[in-house]
């Protein structure tokens, strides 16, 4: 088998790690939380970083009228099929060995990734903006609009007494590395076919 095929199979197979490794993490730091509280986002669930973190995030956030972190989302049903499908497709393409299809796979995966990030942003926006009208604490921005509590997509942001940090986790890094491998597979395939 060609080196490019092996790389393509390996790279797309690395997507499968997302079934058991977390994709993303949001951590909240505050003086009262010397051990920060955080949630790990998987393609199938949102989980406690440390035991009871989500319960405690919900408790904190209910004062400003934020919704609970959902136990179930439509994404949890869709993402496994998309990720699993792309992994299987990538492996099949690897066996077929056509490097142009490797590139097509890479572009499709990148588009899906961007869509996924947009979806994540949309959820964050809703989570931070859609507040209960009966909230006990209602803060306003200097311009008089209601304050929103949307966590950042990537990086850190100060929200009242909390510093919210949003970063990829091991699953995402493995996915990026896998995608990188498929792109290398494309380049290598192009070289091999010359």
């Amino acid at each position, binding site marked *: 088998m060609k080196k490019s095929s092996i790389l393509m199979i390996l790279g797309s197979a690395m997507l499968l790690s997302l079934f058991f490794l977390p994709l993303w993490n949001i951590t909240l730091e505050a003086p009262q939380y010397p051990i920060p509280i955080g949630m790990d986002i998987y393609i199938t669930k949102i989980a406690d970083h440390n035991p*009871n973190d989500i319960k*405690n995030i919900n*408790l904190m956030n209910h004062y400003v009228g934020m919704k609970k972190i959902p136990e179930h989302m439509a994404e949890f049903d869709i993402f496994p099929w998309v990720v699993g499908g792309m992994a299987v497709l990538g492996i099949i393409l690897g066996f077929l060995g056509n490097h142009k299809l490797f590139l097509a796979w890479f572009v499709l995966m990148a588009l899906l990734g961007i869509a996924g990030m947009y979806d994540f942003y949309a959820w964050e926006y809703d989570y931070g903006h859609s507040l209960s009208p009966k909230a006990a604490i209602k803060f306003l921005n200097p311009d008089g609009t209601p304050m929103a509590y949307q966590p950042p997509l990537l990086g850190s942001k100060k929200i009242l007494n909390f510093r919210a940090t949003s970063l990829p986790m091991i699953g995402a890094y493995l996915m990026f590395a896998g995608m990188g491998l498929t792109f290398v597979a494309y380049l290598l395939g192009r070289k091999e076919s010359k």
Partner: protein
Amino acid sequence: MKFILKSFSILIVFALTWSLSSCGGNMGEKKADNSGSALGKSTAERVFVAPGQHDEFYGFISGGFSGQLAVYGLPSGRLFKVIPVFSQDGEKAYGYNEETKPMLQTSHGFVPWDDSHHPDISQTNGELDGRWVFINANNTPRIARVSLKSFETEEIIEIPNSAGNHSSAFVTENTEYVVAGTRFGVPIPQRDMSIEDYKGNFKAALSFVKVDPKTGHMNIAFQVLMPGFDYDLTHPGRGKSHGWMFFSTYNTEEANSLLEVNASQNDKDFIAAINWKKAEEFIKQGKGKMMPAKYAHNVYDEATMKATSTMENQVMTLDASKLPGLVYFLPTPKSPHGCDVDPTGEYIVGSGKLAAALTVHSFTKMLKAIEDKAFDGEAYGIPILKFEAVNAGTVVQPGLGPLHTEFDGKGNAYTTFFISSEVVKWKLGTWEVIDRKPTYYSVGHLMIPGGNSRKPYGKYLVAMNKITKDRYLPTGPEVCQSAQLYDITGEKMEMLLDFPTVGEPHYAAGCPASLLEDKSQKIYKLEDNQHKYATKSEKEAKVVREGKNVHIYMTMIRSHFAPDNIEGVKVGDKVFFHVTNLEQDYDVPHGISMIGANTSELLIMPGQTETFVWEPKEVGVWPFYCTDFCSALHQEMQGYVRVSPAGSSTPLKWGLDGEWHN
């Protein structure tokens, strides 16, 4: 006349020593203030633990007549917690809530107070293992076991045939036993007889309480019945002397009145050496005698969060007078108080509290004396070993009124002197005095972390004083109790710190912080809560009437109770608030109290359930609220119970946020 002269001369010596020691004290103190240590740090820096930093050691200091056990950080002397043990504590609802009331049950009924004296940390292979700390109740004889994970009292066992449980609660080197020796001789079994018939008729029980190595659960394995002397303090053999327990005695005169004079006549009293391994053999051979006895055994179950009190009805006894080889007496001058065994297990230090010298016995010599039958008569059938045959040495003129000795593990011993108000450092083996430092004032016991084990941590020494006088800002006639911290790493001791204590600090145990801090309980898992009346979610909250009893299954979470409105309670009802803290976050307890309840608040840790009883006496609408500032909306954490007249038809219902159930 002779007696008057004698006491007069003692007074003169006392006065001289007092003035000498206070002179030396002032000089010593100045030196401590101005000069740094070898490391060049000021005294203040050496006890300063910066904000947010942790102390190096835990100190568990007995609460004396408060009945409790206080937890301090060393070297800072900061008070962290007062663990309720033998006295009711309204702050933590100990002895007030339905769960812990059984902890204070005794054969005499509910006893809400005691006098706690001597904490001792559990050991494995002669070293501190940090699982439990045991402490004795002196007045109504009991031993308590406190968990060093939850820092709460988990078990209390009453000691029958005992009175003034003073020589207690010390553990053997694998925590096989925790012991309880009686300070008062009493009729055994108790009966109606003339006090004047004490001598020869009263007896004393030395109890060996077996500790389950896994659960820590205690049961009285046996009691050694001894002559009716007063058994003052005790320490276990260790290393080579493991298997023996040494008890100091006074009142070998067996006086029953004016003991300050009549129990101070004998030149020598005894240290009783008990061979507990032999005791175990005697029991196996059927030489023990089971006798009827009534004593309470109270156990708190962490899963059900409920204490249960069981009344036991018999105890195994061994008659020391009739079982040769079980007990030997080591003559020791002048009413010894402390009876302390050095880390090697070879030396037994007797502190004759009315003597001007310290007597040290040798375990090796003791075994030889027993083998050679080097006896100097007997007392009630128990052989008295020849003083010369067991004595290892004497620390000559170390001070006045020696009380208690601990060790630094480097071959040095440190003894407190009550009358001359000082701590004296001396060398084991050569018996020479190395250093002396004053205490302020009249020191009782001292503590070196691990100082009663094979492995002392010889860095600090805590001296616990009986008198405080002018050392702090005055607080009326009752001034604070006081301890003092000394650095013992150098050749000479250095006083670093005074700090106030809770109740009278009789005795203490200490250990490195690293032994405990990482395993300290943070929360209780809600799913593990097996309390009979637990409510694990708001949906399950309810109110149930059973005749006159109304059971409220209530939850608490930031920042509300569920339910927080209750109607249908009537005058004459007995209302049980079973309240579960649904929090699962570190340091988020909630409290609850009800106006007019004839009991304390509840202070409930995350994941736990507790119960208090309220018997409404008046018609009205009565509020309850959260007593522990839990959150930004703590003040809003409140609710109402409507109380209707007895016999009214107000239906029982409960609600939260306008949603009612019935």
